[in-house]
């Protein structure tokens, strides 16, 4: 029997704000436990929430970037449940009126584009972090109250590959827009996946299983692939898939049962009366979402159109934010986009990889790379010389001009000088002229070699080539 895989993904994303969602404590993951905690985060009696404006801005940006329609009146609700990591006994979230609805993210899998539909984006607050030990559990309230958005897809993901592509694309976009750190391994991007399968043609969904603890994109794919296999095997054995929560176990590359889901929990959602509905100013909303930086895929298209780059080059450039930023500076200095891109993708990336460096700590300024390419084009240096110059640019903070001077790199392109040397060689090696006319190709190369020898390799090869041919033509007549 053939089965269709149905996947929905819920992503919790910590927003990159200075302070927490509803309290003035700092939002930081890099501090000793319980050092950034306000009475509000502890749920002390009488404390009241105040909404973080920056968090709203970032949520709006996420909505815009993921093509959601925006609800410009903010409503908050309470999700009520008891849990050790939830000091108030409820979480402030948006139930009935999420800030964003009906968006999508475009992914590309096997060279085919697909829109993954987003059902909703809502704002909420993070819970305290639990650190489990064998006989006790510690709580870190630094995490309690960190602003979150939850991004929920519709169940229209059909494979582990698509799921991984979705998470990756989403991460790229939100990282670009500085909405979040998006670090899966540190928990600033947390991904829960709902997987079910059904025989092709069946309308009803199968029983879904939730997978938690996915701390990398590749694990998203692996976990789903394993889970689909597991569910298929169950169904083919005539057993039922049970509603449960599982986690991905990295060591065994399998999913492991965490808990069975018996009856659905009733969270008794109702309005958070401590925050009255906030009507967002339309102008402010527009201001927030209209100046968004260009997204990676938008850049990709523009690079092809504006700079005539291949789709491959455009993709490589935009897949890496620092490289993209470098490129955008580069193009302000010179216009041989294709060649500059080649240098970036081939030489620069190669050098960085080989030397374990990154764009962030790279020595070569965009301006210098641009000048170097320009000099090649102008014939001031040869491509071969450029490689030397490049090595120096990458290892020192010197300019192209300084390096050229230091290495004594000169290229003789002046016609008069070159013609004098060419004629000297023609006189000295007149027998080669006969060989050349007799059709011996090697004779031409020999003469070029002699010219280069006389100029200590500094003659502009293209120029020499052209002038030598021209002089030989004269002799033929």
């Amino acid at each position: 029997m053939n089965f269709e895989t149905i996947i929905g993904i819920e992503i919790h994303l910590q927003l990159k704000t200075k302070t927490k969602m509803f309290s003035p404590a700092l939002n930081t993951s890099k501090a000793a436990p319980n050092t950034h905690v306000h009475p509000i985060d502890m749920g002390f009696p009488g404390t009241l929430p105040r909404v973080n404006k920056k968090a709203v801005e970032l949520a709006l940006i996420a909505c815009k970037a993921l093509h959601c329609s925006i609800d410009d009146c903010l409503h908050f609700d309470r999700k009520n449940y008891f849990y050790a990591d939830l000091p108030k006994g409820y979480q402030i979230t948006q139930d009935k009126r999420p800030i964003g609805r009906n968006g999508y993210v475009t992914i590309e899998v096997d060279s085919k584009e697909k829109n993954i539909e987003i059902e909703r984006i809502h704002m909420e607050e993070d819970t305290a972090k639990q650190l489990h030990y064998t006989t006790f559990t510690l709580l870190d309230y630094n995490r309690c109250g960190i602003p979150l958005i939850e991004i929920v897809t519709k169940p229209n993901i059909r494979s582990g590959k698509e799921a991984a592509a979705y998470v990756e694309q989403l991460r790229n976009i939100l990282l670009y827009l500085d909405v979040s750190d998006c670090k899966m391994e540190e928990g600033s991007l947390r991904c829960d996946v709902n997987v079910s399968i059904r025989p092709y043609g069946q309308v009803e969904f199968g029983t879904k299983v939730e997978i938690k603890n996915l701390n990398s994109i590749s694990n998203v794919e692996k976990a789903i692939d394993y889970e689909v296999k597991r569910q298929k095997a169950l169904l083919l054995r005539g057993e039922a898939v049970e509603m449960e929560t599982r986690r991905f176990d990295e060591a065994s590359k399998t999913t492991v049962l965490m808990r069975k889901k018996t009856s659905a929990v009733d969270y008794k959602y109702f309005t958070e009366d401590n925050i009255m509905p906030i009507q967002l100013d339309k102008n402010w909303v527009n201001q927030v979402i209209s100046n968004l930086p260009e997204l990676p895929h938008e850049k990709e298209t523009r690079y092809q159109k504006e700079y005539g780059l291949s789709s491959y080059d455009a993709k490589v450039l935009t897949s890496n934010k620092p490289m993209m930023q470098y490129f955008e500076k580069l193009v302000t200095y010179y216009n041989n986009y294709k060649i500059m891109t080649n240098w970036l993708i081939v030489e620069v990336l190669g050098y960085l990889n080989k030397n374990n460096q990154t764009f962030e700590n790279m020595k070569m300024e965009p301006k210098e790379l641009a000048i170097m390419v320009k000099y090649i084009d102008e014939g001031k240096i040869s491509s071969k010389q450029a490689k030397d110059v490049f090595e120096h640019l990458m290892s020192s903070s010197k300019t192209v001009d300084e390096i050229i001077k230091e290495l004594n790199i000169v290229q003789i392109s002046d016609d008069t000088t070159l013609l004098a040397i060419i004629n000297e060689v023609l006189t000295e090696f007149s027998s080669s002229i006969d060989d050349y006319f007799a059709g011996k190709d090697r004779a031409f190369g020999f003469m070029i070699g002699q010219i280069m020898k006389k100029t200590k390799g500094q003659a502009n090869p293209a120029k020499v080539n052209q002038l030598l041919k021209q002089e030989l033509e004269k002799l033929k007549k």
Partner: protein
Amino acid sequence: MDYLNQSLETIHQALKDKKVTVTELVKEAINKAKKLQETCNAFVTIDEDNALNQAKELDNKEVTDNLLFGIPMAIKDNYSTKDVLSTGSSNILNNYVPIFESQATSLLKDANAISIGKTVLDELAMGGSGLTGHTGVVKNPLDTNRLIGGSSAGSCAAVVAGVIPFALGSDTGDSVRKPASLGGIVGFKPTWGRISRYGLYPFAPSLDTVAFFTRNVKDSAYIFDVLNGYDNKDMTCFNLEKEIVYDSINGTIKGKKIAVLKEIYETISNPEIKKEFDEFFENVKKQGVQVDLISIDKKLYDTIYSTYMILSCSEATSNNANLDGINFGNYVEANGVDASVIATRSKGFSELIKRRFVIGSYILSKENQEKLFIKAKKLRRLIVEDVNRILDSYDAIVLPASGNVAPLFKQGNDVDRLSDEYLLLENHMAIGNFGGFPSITIPCIKYQGLPIGINITGKAFKDKDVLNLAYGLESMIGGKK
């Protein structure tokens, strides 16, 4: 001379004239508080050392023009007071010492008022009897066989007994205005959102209001001036300029129009009490005030009690979910976290509170929200719209704050089923909380030597007008006696 049962202005003048020192005042207040504690059980904590220390400090300073300078006060024990036990009169918080100060108490302390202690309330402010605090029943200083009402029972009793000239309470249904009536003092609940609730233990945030007891209306106006104003710690606190009304209320009431709601007023069952109130309204008319007995939709107003219970219990069950013993409070250890939370809450709350939580939980459950919770919200809106319609043509709605004097304690009574408790006459003041209206109770008539107050409720943000009307009526009542 006893200054503590005088007006703020009188005490202030005595301080200025050096007839009395702050220390003397505070000492006297503490002595009285201790005495009252023996007879009426008004206090959870009498904060003698802190109060005397502050008094000494103030005595080294020049008396400023601020009327609260050196004035002793009491604070309901559901305000978070830094470093001072704040129990909410519940066993679950019987050891809780907050690390931060509520906005209301810090404004009063900034004005150099001195807290002499924290007062008993009905557990977590849920209840109207003063019977359910974890440290015991609060009695009415006017007659210790009677209750004082609640939930701000201890604060009311302390002002009634002249321990302090004013005390902080809170009002979710009528928790200040009802006891004020039974104790014969002034209880004012300003417009919702005019005073920051930061640090007030939440019962039902959409109804909760910082409120207070004073001996007279002018004093209430002064406390209102100190407390009102924007606070960025409370998002439901209106971003409006601070209002100063004290100097501008003069009690001119001639030409005012007040509405008496017929279907509520006429249910006063005791003919003698009814007669007293009839007389009162006749006198009001003589002051040139238009008094209209107007008819209301009884069926709609009869839902006030159930609407109030549905909304307040629902909000309460969620607001008190933080009381699990994990971060603070009276933690009861059991096998594992879940069991400990269950043990903490089982032991920490009285039966009455648990009953309210069960009701609230039931109402908020998915299958009941639409037919109970949402419906109650709609009723609340309909009632508020109707009241606003009346207030479009009248300066205030004026009604007896209760239909009878303070009830006697009953033997083996079911405390949640007080006589008349479900009558509209005894519950109409929740209207003030439904609409966030400014609402004040002032002493009005006496029956068998015991007071019953009159309640005056006006449009939201018309605090000054309500105070002014109350001041006028107070002068009239005082003149008559």
